[in-house]
């Protein structure tokens, strides 16, 4: 009980002798923390007007945030009565230790398989990575939703990163009727793909006769395009193929079932077996 009283008395002594400095240091720290977040936000906005490189923006603004934060901590500590040299040394040692630990254990630290600005698919969510924190990843979907996914969940799930490869293969599958000219249809599809400026010359676009389905012949066009242009190129190619087939009188097949009706002699029952006399 007595020791508790001594402790409280000591705190009271410190507050009476250094209270003003400590209060100032605390105010300085709080204001500094708010200011660092505020300035970093505006720096990020300003940089986004100069460059579209999200990685560069992230590196510059994060570096600024850390340096500003260190400066705030240093000034607040000296305000509280600590010697500037000691605080500086402590921060340096802590910083170097953190960097050392990161370098040493980096191979063992699970890292996220994407960067800010990448288009990824995690589970059912497809979108662009806007930001990553220690806890979660913020993704903006193409229909304008902002989705927060816990990094723990991402590390356990299958992630498709569409930025790892520069190009992507477009599939244009069309079914034509059995009575249609396959070679003519293949020629038209290949012409359309070759003529499109977005389709790569190598690997060359190809059209395969993929399958003989129940009521159509399946033709498969394959062409390579730059990843960002994948979706719109695919839509354009499908539209062009449809119209050109209409123009060239190539009938696109639709699911159909042919029913054949035969007249059976009266001596046959419904199962087709002859009725004994």
């Amino acid at each position: 009980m007595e020791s508790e009283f001594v402790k409280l008395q000591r705190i009271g002594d410190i507050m009476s002798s250094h209270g003003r400095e400590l209060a100032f240091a605390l105010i300085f720290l709080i204001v500094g923390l708010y200011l660092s977040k505020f300035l970093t936000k505006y720096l990020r906005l300003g940089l986004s007007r100069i460059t579209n490189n999200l990685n560069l923006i992230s590196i510059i603004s994060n570096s600024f945030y850390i340096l500003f934060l260190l400066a705030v901590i240093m000034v607040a500590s000296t305000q509280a009565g600590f010697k500037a040299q000691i605080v500086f040394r402590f921060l340096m040692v802590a910083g170097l230790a953190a960097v050392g630990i990161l370098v040493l254990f980096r191979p063992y630290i699970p890292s996220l398989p994407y960067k800010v600005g990448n288009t990824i698919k995690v589970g059912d969510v497809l979108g662009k990575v806007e930001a990553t924190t220690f806890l979660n990843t913020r993704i903006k979907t193409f229909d304008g939703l902002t989705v927060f996914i816990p990094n723990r969940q991402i590390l356990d799930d299958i992630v498709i990163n569409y930025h790892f490869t520069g190009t992507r293969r477009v599939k244009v599958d069309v079914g034509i009727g059995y009575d249609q000219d396959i070679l003519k249809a293949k020629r038209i599809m290949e012409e359309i793909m070759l003529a499109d400026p977005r389709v790569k010359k190598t690997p060359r676009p190809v059209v395969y006769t993929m399958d003989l389905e129940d009521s159509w012949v399946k033709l498969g066009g394959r062409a390579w395009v730059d990843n960002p242009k994948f979706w719109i190129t695919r839509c354009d190619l499908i539209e062009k193929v449809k119209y050109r087939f209409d123009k060239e009188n190539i009938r696109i097949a639709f699911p159909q079932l042919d029913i054949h009706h035969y007249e059976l002699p009266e001596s046959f029952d419904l199962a087709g077996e002859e009725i004994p006399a």
Partner: protein
Amino acid sequence: MKIGQALKVIDTGWIKKDKGYRVHYQRQTGNEVTTEYTPDLDDAPLDSDVAAWRTAWKLQQATQTENSEFGEGKMINIYVVNDQGEQVKYYKTNELKIYNKV
């Protein structure tokens, strides 16, 4: 002939790959008829003829009036050209097409 050479022959002789598309149109400014393009010749062309034809159609829709006479502000001879300035066939009909033809 090696296959690479054969492919070069095919590429140069069969299908021409355009590098981009622009919408060509003419309009009256004062007493003169000027030819303009969208996107401008200084800007990068569109990489989709589908998008270019859609723009051409929208320009026609936006500038057509009940009065069929060519006048101030009205756009005529709207069609799509390639990077060489050559008229491009309309992908729907595979024929040349001109909106507001005068």
